[in-house]
């Protein structure tokens, strides 16, 4: 079994400006944020980002890394929209390809299966076909003669997904309730990277959960990076939930230039270890602030 272990820097070194990059997860859930942060620190730009979007999309747009976003939504789940993506769209700083969620799935599936398109009803009659004039319909060659949307293969130059456990050979384990579309991002890509909370010996994978949690096979991976806390501040259950306090800080900071500059220097202009340390430090500060508020409220009510 080939040893596919890499560092975050190795991973970013495999990427090039101008690439089309798929980012796994869904909204603010199990996003490969350590890899995103590493891209933010790099000199890569002109990327086409393909994502069931969360904070990955907003951060990359804000840093000037992105020329186009392919997305069905960009959301932080517990907060409906991402402020940095909003700003990028409202200033037309990035081009957009907006798909229905199911079309997006079929685009990745078509790329994985090496067919040029897959047919669906999804998109018919909607503005998805208006704002993406390159999209075509296809007429069924059978007796029904139905005219359906032909979703083109969403071929990716590279894909990154984040999982709970993996081994050095690149087999990945997703312990949370939803594997999302991570397998398909990898299947659709030429260069395929898995980041993981913990690298474990292969025999610990099957011991750690039912067989169906071993959903990423090494047939789908070229490189694997151990990045504890690598999905933070998005959810990576059961290892950790979404860091809602951090996410609120992110949204508040993003709305104010001065606060955003401070946020960037504290959390983004540092390496991954520095980020994790700063995030722990912030959690401590927020806890202390909450305790002080509770104590003050207690005094007032007395």
């Amino acid at each position, binding site marked *: 079994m080939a040893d596919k272990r890499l560092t975050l820097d190795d991973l970013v070194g495999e990427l090039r400006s101008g690439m089309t990059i798929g980012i796994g997860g869904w909204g603010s859930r199990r996003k490969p944020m350590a890899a995103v942060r590493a891209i933010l620190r790099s000199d890569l730009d002109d990327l086409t980002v393909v994502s069931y979007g969360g904070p990955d999309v907003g951060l990359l747009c804000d840093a000037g890394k992105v020329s186009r976003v392919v997305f069905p939504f960009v959301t932080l789940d517990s907060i409906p929209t991402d402020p940095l993506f909003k700003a990028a769209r*409202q200033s037309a700083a990035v081009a957009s390809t907006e798909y229905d*969620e199911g079309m997006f*799935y079929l685009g990745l599936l078509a790329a994985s299966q090496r067919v040029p398109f897959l047919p669906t009803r999804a998109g018919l009659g909607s503005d*998805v076909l208006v704002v993406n004039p390159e999209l075509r319909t296809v007429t069924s060659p059978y007796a029904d003669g*139905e005219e359906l949307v032909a979703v083109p293969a969403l071929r990716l130059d590279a894909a990154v997904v984040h999982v709970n456990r993996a081994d050095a050979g690149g087999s990945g384990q997703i312990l949370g309730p939803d594997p999302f579309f991570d397998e398909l991002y990898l299947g659709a890509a030429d260069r395929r990277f898995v980041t993981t909370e913990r690298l474990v010996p292969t025999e610990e994978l099957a011991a750690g959960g039912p067989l169906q949690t071993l959903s990423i096979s090494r047939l789908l991976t070229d490189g694997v990076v151990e990045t504890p806390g690598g999905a933070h501040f998005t959810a990576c259950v059961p290892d950790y939930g979404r860091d809602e306090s951090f996410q609120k800080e992110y949204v508040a900071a993003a709305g104010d230039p001065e606060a955003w500059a401070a946020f960037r220097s504290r959390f983004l202009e540092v390496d991954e270890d520095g980020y994790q340390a700063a995030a722990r430090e912030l959690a401590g500060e927020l806890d202390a602030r909450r305790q002080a508020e509770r104590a003050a409220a207690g005094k007032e009510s007395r």
Partner: protein
Amino acid sequence: MSDPTATGVTRAESCIVACAEVFRGDGEVMASAFGTAPAIGSRLAKRTFSPDLVLTDGDAALMVGAPALGTRPEELVLESHMPYRKVFDVVWSGRRNLIMMASQIDRTGNQNISAIGPWARPKAQLVGVRGAPGNTVNHPTSYWIPNHSTRTFVEQVDVVSGVGYRRAAEAGPAATRFHEIRHVISNLGVFDFETPDRVMRLRSVHPGVTVDEVVAATGFELVVPDEVPDTRLPTPGELALIREVLDPRGLRDREVRA
């Protein structure tokens, strides 16, 4: 027009009953409901006239029964795995009945959750079209709009996300085959498209609301029948379920006041 104070039924409770009615007659279909009133309404329908409805846990599973809103995940009894990839199998099979929300809705039933203003450079970027295009051409879809105004009920939506009747007809038989916009429920009344040219019609007003109020808050010409009934009142049993079982914490009153 009945006086809501005379019946003691709140506006939110009328909205919940209207949402529940969307699921009447459904057998084993997956009920998906976004927003507080639809979430309570789908659970009320399951506990009363549509017991075979299948509800999701809000994450990646189907759950047993119709527990109170805000029940902790570890207290739910799950019966099936329903990750997003399988949700699309259900959507495309048609075995689903959905109430979505809408930032804008128009006369022919188009819905917008993508962007306000021109798509290429929006005045306000919203969440994105999400699954609305595919949902609306695959299974019955209704909308819940808790803030009825000329800003939400518009002549023409800015970005067609959910597909209305005219757009579906223009797209052809593959789009109309399974297309149905069932009801639109707002904080003022209930609307449908049961008109010859499939434009929005006032179906009922919630108790305490006048037809004139609805017309004034709507940014297009609404079809208003000569007789507009009130939205039906909850039965005493339904009211007890809403207040004591499904929403004892009163989350419904935060979404719709009075």
